[in-house]
């Protein structure tokens, strides 16, 4: 019998031969020392390659992506819905991932804040302006999604602050609703249902009262001594226990030290906006989160940026838009040129208690505010 060719040997190593072929080859190997040696060699080579390729892997993000743990029975999942009509966008039922962020060690509140901080630009027009980004504003409204009522701009700018609801986690998705002039509605579910949990250090849960900061700071874990994951898990559970029952006066929060970086966007999970809107945003330490770079958007990083920093964005036109903002001393700007007709301006300022962001498309502008320690993802899909 002729010897086994290299391709077949490697296919055997990779378990890619069908049963008949395999038994024929194995029979040959049993009686042919040379082929058996070559097979051993091929096996070793394949293993070595695996090891070598592994050397190319860059460290995993500090935050691991995993699916949401449970679904909340108590509150109906309320998707965050963006409605577009003649270029005016409405965000309904702002719904953000309390559960996810608890696990991730970032806290936030959900609320609608009528006394929102000034936005970057005032909404002016409702007509579509093809040549320049129209000053449309996304207006979140706490309206029952079932009524499908259209809310016209302008209205107070959204302050997306998220409070961990604790208790059962909820699962939701972001849905785009586009309504054509005829009134027909198209709903496009969009968004990643992912949860984030840290693989490395995570600070202990820090109870925070509505009033502010003092308690939390004294209890914050020191960054140099990362708590273990089980510790963090207990903290999450403690937070959940504390959250059951009537609306709590305190909010448990997990703080992420400044140096903790979150690579991936997190928003899933829904909870109805809370009645209280103020308070917990009081000057907490900013969590660093990452800006997301859009594919097709190249990036330069200046020399001050650590090489392991990650940034990703989705192109806002026709694809999902992800936005994570870094509050603190970072000032980010991104522009797309004309390819997608979109511009991204993200501004954060050190010492401020809120982060302002603005995402612009050809005929929309979305603006919002994030409290520090908050994480937000907005998924928008536009008809191209």
């Amino acid at each position, binding site marked *: 019998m002729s010897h086994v060719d290299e391709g077949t040997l490697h296919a055997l190593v990779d378990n890619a031969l069908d049963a008949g072929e395999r038994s024929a080859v194995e029979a040959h190997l049993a009686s042919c020392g040379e082929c058996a040696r070559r097979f051993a060699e091929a096996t070793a*080579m394949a293993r070595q390659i695996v090891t070598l390729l592994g050397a190319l892997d860059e460290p995993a993000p500090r935050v691991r*992506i995993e699916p949401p743990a449970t679904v909340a029975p108590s509150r109906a999942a309320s998707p965050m819905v963006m409605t577009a009509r003649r270029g005016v966008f409405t965000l309904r039922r702002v719904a953000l991932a309390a559960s996810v962020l608890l696990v991730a060690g970032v806290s936030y509140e959900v609320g609608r804040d009528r006394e929102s901080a000034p936005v970057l630009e005032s909404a002016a027009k409702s007509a579509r302006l093809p040549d320049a980004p129209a000053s449309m504003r996304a207006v979140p409204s706490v309206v029952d999604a079932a009524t499908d009522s259209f809310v016209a701009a302008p209205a107070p700018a959204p302050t997306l602050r998220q409070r961990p609801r604790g208790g059962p986690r909820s699962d939701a998705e972001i849905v785009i609703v586009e309504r054509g002039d005829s009134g027909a509605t198209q709903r496009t579910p969009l968004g*990643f249902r992912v949860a984030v949990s840290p693989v490395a250090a995570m600070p202990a849960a820090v109870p925070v009262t509505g009033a502010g900061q003092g308690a939390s700071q004294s209890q914050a874990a020191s960054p140099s001594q990362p708590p273990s994951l089980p510790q963090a898990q207990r903290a999450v559970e403690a937070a959940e226990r504390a959250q059951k029952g009537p609306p709590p006066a305190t909010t448990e929060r997990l703080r992420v030290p400044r140096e903790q*970086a979150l690579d991936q966007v997190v928003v899933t999970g829904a909870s109805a906006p809370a009645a209280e809107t103020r308070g917990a945003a009081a000057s907490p330490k900013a969590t660093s989160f990452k800006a997301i770079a859009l594919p097709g958007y190249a990036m330069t990083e200046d020399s001050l940026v*650590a090489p*392991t920093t990650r940034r990703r964005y989705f192109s806002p036109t026709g694809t999902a838009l992800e936005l994570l903002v870094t509050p603190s001393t*970072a000032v980010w700007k991104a522009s797309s040129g004309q390819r997608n007709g979109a511009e991204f301006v993200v501004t954060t300022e050190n010492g401020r208690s809120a982060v302002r962001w603005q995402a612009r498309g050809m005929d929309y502008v979305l603006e919002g505010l994030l409290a520090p320690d908050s994480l937000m993802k907005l998924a928008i899909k536009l008809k191209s």
Partner: protein
Amino acid sequence: MGLDLGELFREYHESLVRMLTRRTGDRGRAEELAQETFARAVAAPPTNPRPWLFAVALNLLREEGRNAATRERRLVLVKDEDHVAPYEQPDEAYEREETRLRVRAALAQLSERDRDVLLLQAEGFDYDEIAEATGLARGAIGTTLARARKRMLEVYTQGEGGSHVARG
């Protein structure tokens, strides 16, 4: 019935990013490409996701390489005091980087097709999936892998100063 993007993401995102990171040497770019790839899956849901996603990603990579315009758009970070990279002993870091460079150099010696096949196999693709993702005949995959592995190891070993390697 729409695509369950979340499911797709959960199953394949990490693998895709890893493959692209190995391929490009740049995790940030790999993640951008992965995001673009998933965005396209939303627009045109594939029936056989894994080979499709990887094929699209590899195509995007090829196109991107050719299109200088994609590099025009810029994100400029003015300053970022928040980020702290994980600490490593200097000699560890050096060694790791050395190895990394050698492996990248070895990988670069392969033809694009051989390289893609190797990387897909390393992501656990079976031969059928590799064939589908690359457009190669299934029967040729074994031979391609044999060649790619051999070549890569040759180059890698030679990169080690060459003094202990018998050339032949």
